[in-house]
Structure formats: C-alpha cells, structure tokens
C-alpha cells in the first residue's frame, strides 16, 4: 500500500532575514522539518520570536526559504496552485472594515473562483458554523476581537480546503471566544481537515492537537505525538476523589490502611504540555 501524501512537508527549512544594522543576517528558522499527515491536528509552540510565524509564512509562500523546501499535498508552496487546498488565518487579522461579514466571505469566495448559488450556500453554511448569522450584515469595523477571529476562520474555510493554518487563533480573545474557536477546531478535526496551528495557549494546544512541535530560537527542539511526549514512564499516578489537603500529605503512608479515601485510578502520570515546553526552552536558555 502506498503512503498517503503528507498535507504539509517542510524539509530542512532555513530562513535568514537581512538586518539593516548588522552585517550578519538574522536566522529566524534554522533547519526545521515538519511532516503533517492528512487529518492530523499539529500544534507548533514556542516563545515569541522563535520562528513559528516565519515557518507558517514560508509554507504559504509569503516568504521565500533561504534553503529547504515546503510543500502542501505534494505541491511546492511557492507555486500559486498549492494554495487551492489551504485556508489561512493570520495572527490578529483585520479584514476590510467597510465590508460586512457576508460581503467579506463572498469576496474571498470569489477570489477562489466560487460563484452564484454555490457561493451563497457556502457563505450561509460558514456563517452558521462560526455562529455569526446574526451579525452577517454588520460592518466588520464593528466586530469584536472574537468575532473577527471567527469570521477569519470562516474565510479560511471558504473554498473547503483540506488544510487550515491558524497563527495564534486565540490571541487577544476572551476565554469564551477562545473556547468557541477551540470547539471550531474540534469540528474541523471531525470533518477530517488537517489543522496546523501555533499558539501560546498551551492548554488549548494540549486539548486539540494530536501532534506537537516545540520550536525555540528557530530550531525544532522536540517533536512527536502529544501522548508520547507528555507521558513519564518512571512515575506512577494516583488519582483520588474528595481527598483533603491533609490527606494528600500523608497519602502514601495512609492509603493502604485508610478506607475513607476513594481510589479512583492508578496509572502513569503525565506532565502538562506547559511543563514540557518550559523545561525544554529553559534548559536550552541556560546552556546558551
């Protein structure tokens, strides 16, 4: 059986930027390789300025790699036709303020060659999906941050792409809006759409992603299946219900004798993605 074409394939990507004051170019991305298979939800995490957005822009052809290659469903990402299957939501997007939500979606739909009844139906469907039917005729200029992110996600999905790239989809959005976007990502995963996202909200990444890459100072420092990355093999997890703080302090000594505490599950404890991220980035910061 032949292996499916990866939705995203980034091979040894290097991106240098010329700087005005220094002769030495700034290396924003240093030998990064990523492979995302169709249907996966991949989270790229890293501190500010670590090269996340540059990696995404290289994948979209918005910046040209200094070396290395990027492809989308096997097509060179510098070629326009590779973007037929991609939807992109940039960080803090601002759409044309003079257009309404519906007009915005129609504009992007027409750019993708969708017309007539098909476009009308698609716009209606997406407005329902992102829960903006009530605000479809309002000018974008009056939208809240969360609404902007949702209309941004809708425009990314207008041509029914098989890959959606989200750059900080919940940046600046309140917890409720943030949860709504998370739920939308779940819906995309259910539909089999590949999602490539970068975010600072590690808990959300942990919730929605099945593969994760940690990028630090332009280098990929850890990558793999989330389940594998956060499992700690040499520890045992004790999960209890209704345990008081005092009981927790003496738990190991008392648990065998004390029958009041309910032993719910014993298993392998896992660190959080947040802890893993901090450990990986701090240890490298100390060594540099």
């Amino acid at each position: 059986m032949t292996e499916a074409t990866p939705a995203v394939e980034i091979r040894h990507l290097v991106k240098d930027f010329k700087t005005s004051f220094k002769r030495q170019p700034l290396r924003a991305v240093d030998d990064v390789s990523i492979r995302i298979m169709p249907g996966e939800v991949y989270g790229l995490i890293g501190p500010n300025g670590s090269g996340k957005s540059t990696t995404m822009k290289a994948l979209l052809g918005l910046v040209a790699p200094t070396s290395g290659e990027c492809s989308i469903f096997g097509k060179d990402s510098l070629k326009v036709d590779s973007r037929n299957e991609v939807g992109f939501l940039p960080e803090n997007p601002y759409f044309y303020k003079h257009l309404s939500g519906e007009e915005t979606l129609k504009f992007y739909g027409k750019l993708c060659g969708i017309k007539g009844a098909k476009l009308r139906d698609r716009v209606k469907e997406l407005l329902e999906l992102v829960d903006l039917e009530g605000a479809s005729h309002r000018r974008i200029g009056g939208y809240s941050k969360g609404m902007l992110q949702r209309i941004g996600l809708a425009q990314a999905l207008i041509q029914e792409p098989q890959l959606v790239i989200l750059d900080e989809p919940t940046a600046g959005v309140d917890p409720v809006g943030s949860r709504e976007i998370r739920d939308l990502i779940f819906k995309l995963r259910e539909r089999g759409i590949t999602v490539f996202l970068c975010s600072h909200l590690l808990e959300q990444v942990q919730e929605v992603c099945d593969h994760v890459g940690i990028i630090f100072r332009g280098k990929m420092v850890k990558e793999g299946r989330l389940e594998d990355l956060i499992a700690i093999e040499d520890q045992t997890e004790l999960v209890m219900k209704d345990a008081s703080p005092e009981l927790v302090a003496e738990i190991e000594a008392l648990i065998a004798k004390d029958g009041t505490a309910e032993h719910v599950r014993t298993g392998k404890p896992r660190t959080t993605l947040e802890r893993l991220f901090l450990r990986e980035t701090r240890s490298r910061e100390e060594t540099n």
Partner: protein
Amino acid sequence: MNPLINMLSHASRIGVIARHAFTQLVRMKVFYFLAFFAVILIGSNFFDLPQHEGPESAGINILRSIKSWSLGAMTLFSVVLSIVATALLLPKDVEDRTLYTILAKPVPRIDYLAGKLIGVLLLVFVSLALMDVLMTGILHLRTEMVLADQMAVAEARNWPAQDVALLKSDILAQGPTASLQGAVFSVFLRATIIASMAMLISTFSSSTLFTTIISFLIYFVGHFQADARAAYFTHEAGTGDGFWLRGVALLISLVLPDFQLFNVIDAVIEGQVLPLLILGKLTLIGLFYFVFYVIASWLVFARKEF
C-alpha cells in the same frame, strides 16, 4: 490548465479585486469632492475677465473660463486621487495583514496588483465621467445663452449671413465639443500613467507618505522629460559633468513619460480641435506606460516578503 480558462480565471480574479478596491474607495467617501467641483464650476461662471476684443466676443471668455477651471480641477482631482488612492491601498493591506489572507488564496501577485490598480483607475474614470457630465451640462447651457445674445446683436446690426455663420461656429467651438471630450480622456490617460507609476513606487516603499511625496515629485519631473531628452541628444558624450548629465537625462527620458504631451488640453480650452491622431498617440503612450509600470511593479512585488 487550458490557456483560455487560465486567462479567464486571471481576468475574473482581477475583476473581483478591482471591484473591491473601487467599493473600498467609494465607501471612503471620496465622491464628496464632487461637491467642491460643482462649487468651482459655478464659480467659474462669474470669472468674466476684462476683454479687449470687440462686442462679438462677449461671453466667449466665460466659456473658456468654465473649460479652463473644469479641466484644471479635473487634472488636480485625478492626479491627487490616482496618487493618494494607489499609495494608500497596498500599504494598508500589508499593515492590516489582509494581504496575507488574499495571497494565501490561489491569487497570483500580478492579479492582485492589476486588480488594485484597475480599481483605482475605475474610480478615477467614474469621477472624471461625473465631472464631465457636470461640465458639459453647464457649458451647453452657457453656450446657448452666449449664442442667443450674440445672434441678437448680429441681427440688430444686420450682419451678413456669412459673418453670422462664422460667429456661430466660433461660439460653438468654445462649447461642449468632441475635442473637449478628447481633452477629458487625455486627463484620464495622464491619471492612468500617474497611478501606474505610484503603484510601482508603493511596491518597494515602506509608507503611504513616501509613495505620495515621491509620486508627486516624479509627476513634477515628468514635465521636464522633453528637456531631458533634448539634453541627452544635444550634449557631447564624454566624461565629467557632461557624462553624468547625459546619464541622468537618458534615465529620465526612458523611465518617465513626457507629461508635456498632455498640454494639448490647453489648446482645447482655447477652442482648437484635438486631432484624432494626437489622441491616438496619447492613448498608446498611456497604454505603454500602464503595461510598463505594471510589469515593473510585478517584478518587485513578486520577490517581496511579508
């Protein structure tokens, strides 16, 4: 892909972006300037300069004044609109990151540039057409009034029919003629060149202000293109000042259009006929610079990183 389908798909995307750019500018309330134009037009009716000709020329100065003020205002508005609108659209899209979402769709960069430029030109064209309608209407009414007055004078003085016909044709030549429409079209052609040039500058400039200032400067320098061309052909090639002068003169002659060619508009204000050959030549020059600047813009923009 079939080349015809490919071409149609380019044209469709360019059309979508052009319509959008037009709507964007219209919703920025740019048409408010038409009110100023109307005021200028009405004001020009009262600029009855003292005349030294005989009574048979009475009123003709007002017709010239209406044309002169109208075409002057059209030139001003079209140049300002072309430069400011073009200089505004590209940096705004980059700043707001809307460009990312557009270029992340299957939109070639040439389509984006051409669409934006055509959107601006569409706005300039509609603006000029509206101003033209106002000018032609007022000029028609005023010409009829002057004609009636002059015919009454001629009749009272019992002028020969031949002289009356000549007077009538002189007055009508100062009215809304086909040459006047040609002059308005020349204003549009000049705006096309300026907008295309502003587009090229905005592809490598980092701000709207820079693009606007440089575009106005180039527009100004463009009026000396003919002098630069003359300097190139008359100066001796060699070293020193002569070498540099010839170099600069050559650069100006090749890159900038000769805006003095558009001075034919002044002749139309005087009531002269604008020959079709001249209008055809101006159209070809406008088309040439439009294509030249769009290709140059694309060459810069295709390599631009965001």
